[in-house]
């Protein structure tokens, strides 16, 4: 009676969870590519084999537990050792394993063959974003988490693709063999899209290969799979597969855009931006790219990330300040942002750091100052 009082609500609770959990698939994703299909089949085959073995072994065990118990008055047998049986239960699993190894080997060989790709993308991980570069085309960009900070902090309702959305997804053509070259600028990351069955580590200083051939257009989401520091949970991968013609026109428009941006940069060199504009853009840039480590209040995380508020370099040496933002600092977690940010953003963020949080140096850094440091390094 007492037990029933306890068990019934527990079961109801569990059942309600089970019905709520319906929107999450309980099995491995089948994915969309031929490879992911084969991986799924392999997964199911091995799963069923394990189920059969488990059913037999546990079946014998539970039969024994029910029948061969002292309370039923049985007398224990005394048999042990039987070379025949022992050979048999060594040999049978061995044969089953060979049966598993053959399809696994075939699939693996297919997965590792990245020859004859029609498009190559260099994927570079860094804390905590991805960078994509189309090697055959003049196009490269960063891809950063797009979920607003306030959703993560539970101040805003979470969107449907919470933590699985980026500002600029990777775009690839369908029905084309696309080769990915993986590397990293800092720690080890791992680029993973479950629906392609592609997961490959991005190792700093080395290049790994993977490939996919996506038959259907769509949006595919994944995440970084290797612990890469504080914001490891916040660097998703989003891939859009477009029909080849659509992909070509997308590529052309992106290239045009990138060239326009570069022209705009050149024009900026002659311009002086007013302080308000610099500070405004600087704050936005800082919050997006710098605040994860140096914190929104510029005080850093003692022992991990240094404070910018009241920092010697920030208060005095503008050239060194610009250099560290452009190129990072070797041997530390400070990455260079020269590739990632525009001249305007770089100028703005350095200005912001030199004037925010009571750092009031009053100094304005312009795009031309950044360009001067960049030239000096060449």
């Amino acid at each position: 009676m007492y037990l029933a009082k306890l068990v019934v609500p527990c079961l109801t609770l569990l059942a309600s969870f089970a019905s709520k959990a319906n929107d999450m698939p309980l099995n491995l994703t089948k994915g969309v590519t031929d490879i992911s299909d084969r991986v799924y089949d392999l997964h199911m085959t091995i799963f069923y084999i394990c189920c059969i073995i488990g059913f037999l072994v546990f079946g014998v065990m539970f039969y024994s537990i029910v029948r061969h118990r002292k309370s039923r008055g049985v007398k224990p047998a005394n048999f042990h050792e039987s070379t025949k049986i022992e050979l048999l239960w060594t040999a049978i699993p061995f044969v089953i394993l060979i049966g598993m190894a053959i399809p696994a080997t075939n699939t693996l060989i297919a997965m590792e063959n990245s020859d004859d790709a029609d498009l190559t993308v260099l994927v570079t991980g860094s804390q905590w974003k991805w960078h994509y570069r189309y090697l055959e085309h003049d196009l490269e960009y960063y891809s950063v988490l797009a979920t607003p900070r306030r959703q993560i902090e539970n101040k805003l309702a979470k969107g449907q693709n919470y933590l699985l959305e980026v500002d600029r997804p990777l775009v690839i053509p369908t029905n084309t063999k696309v080769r990915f070259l993986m590397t990293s600028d800092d720690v080890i990351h791992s680029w993973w899209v479950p629906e392609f069955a592609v997961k490959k580590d991005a190792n700093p200083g080395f290049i790994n290969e993977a490939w996919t051939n996506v038959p259907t257009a769509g949006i595919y989401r994944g995440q970084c799979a290797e612990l890469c520091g504080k914001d490891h949970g916040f660097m998703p991968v989003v891939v859009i597969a477009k029909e080849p013609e659509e992909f070509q026109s997308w590529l052309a428009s992106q290239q045009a855009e990138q060239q326009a941006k570069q022209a705009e940069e050149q024009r900026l060199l002659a311009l002086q931006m007013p302080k308000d504009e610099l500070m405004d853009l600087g704050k936005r840039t800082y919050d997006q790219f710098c605040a994860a480590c140096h914190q929104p209040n510029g005080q850093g995380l003692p022992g991990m990330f240094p404070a910018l508020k009241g920092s010697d370099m920030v208060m005095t040496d503008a050239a060194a300040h610009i250099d560290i933002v452009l190129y990072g600092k070797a041997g530390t977690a400070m990455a260079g942002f020269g590739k990632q940010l525009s001249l305007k953003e770089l100028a703005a963020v350095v200005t912001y750091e030199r004037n925010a949080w009571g750092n009031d140096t009053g100094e304005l850094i312009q795009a031309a100052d950044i360009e001067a440091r960049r030239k000096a390094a060449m």
Partner: protein
Amino acid sequence: MTSMTEQNDIAAQQHDETNEHHHYAPKGIMRWLLTTNHKDIGTLYLIFAFTMFLVGGAMAMVIRAELFQPGLQLVDPNFFNQMTTVHGLIMVFGAVMPAFTGLANWMIPMMIGAPDMALPRMNNWSFWILPFAFAILLGSLFMEGGGPAFGWTFYAPLSTTYSSDSTALFVFSVHIMGISSIMGAINVIVTIVNLRAPDMSWMKLPLFVWTWLITAFLLIAVMPVLAGVVTMVLTDKYFGTSFFDAAGGGDPVMFQHIFWFFGHPEVYIMILPSFGIVSAIIPAFARKPLFGYASMVYATASIAGLSFIVWAHHMFTTGMPLFGELFFMYCTMLIAVPTGVKVFNWVATMWRGAMTFEVPMLFALAFVVLFTIGGFSGLMLAITPVDFQYHDTYFVVAHFHYVLVTGAIFSIYAAAYYWLPKWTGHMFNEFWAKMHFWCSLVSVNVLFFPMHFLGLAGMPRRIPDYALQFADVNQIVSIGGFAFGLSQLLFVVVVVKAARGGEKAAAKPWEGAEGLEWTVPSPAPYHTFETPPAVK
């Protein structure tokens, strides 16, 4: 025959001469600080291990509380990473390994008819450096920048260039743990090789002794490798070397090779003694001899041998050449054969026995089923092409918690309940012990089974926040986690009650139990087998 008697005479004489020394028994804290008695040291190890289990468990509760809902609620990501890291380190080096060493200390001399461990002073030292190691590790959590946050596997360069300054303390602490383990292992080997009772031949050794002997060799082989790799991390971070930095000619993947060359045998260090425990308990409560004693010994040795040639299955996604992937896949699959032999042996031992289901047996049976489930997921993970999908997801987390919690830790509980009457001289309270078992059994499966689904659905491990589709299952997992955590407190109740009093235990409280440890009274006297016993 004459020489035998002579030896015994000499032993008896020496015993008389040193009698005074034997009676030097400091009281209070000094008894424990200075003790060289294998039973005292065993007790210290077991209490220490359980304390660490609760500390590491508390960290798991922090992790599960943060993951109860999507979004960041309780801790920031940096602290979350410190929790996953230190939880892992404490459970591996602070809970499971010392618990097994404690069991070895208590039981091996009593099982082989030895008066004590062979190297009693070293035994004292190998225990007493451990609290310092963990004080250093836990203390580092309070440093500026926080404690280690790079996972218990401390992959470079996250643990070198990109880590906080507490890394030096982490390295030092792992060094001390390693020294302690190596000393413990040497002691076990020397004891088993030299101090067996005269008639205790190799193939009469209880399986717990056999499995521990093999474990000790694994420890001696791989703990120095761990010491080496943490030292390389130390010099890369502080002394300008570039073992793991491509910019200086090193390779970050080499770190993983060295680490897992230690790490995979380490996994078996944490499960082989379990095999020994279960192989003692199942025959005892089935009242029937172990089906295949010799094949159990050979299977243990094969698993230990294979453990040295499978390490890179932890690294399939690092970009190994195809040949490497195939080699490590085949070798890993092979482990299923000797492991299968073990499971079949246990089941065959139960077959046509006359079973009763006291608490040690309940834990042992749960071990067989749940460890096998962990074995199945292990086999699935061995298949390289599918491992690409499972790797670094909750599927892996589910897998290794099945083998470590329902495997290693359940076997330790089985051992504790099996030998508790021998240690305390009292029978434990059956009701609370059964409550502990059933609560643990249900909650541990609510905790870890749904993690398989999370992993298959694509949730990466070691993340403090997750996409909305994972929310409901994470909630179930967290509830299971809290329930499992609370259930472990019941164990404290049972042990404290049994230590304080209770029904007197007979020398052999379990009808079907076999072995020398049951020939001495309960509680076991401070000194046992001062003269070697006769062995059947």
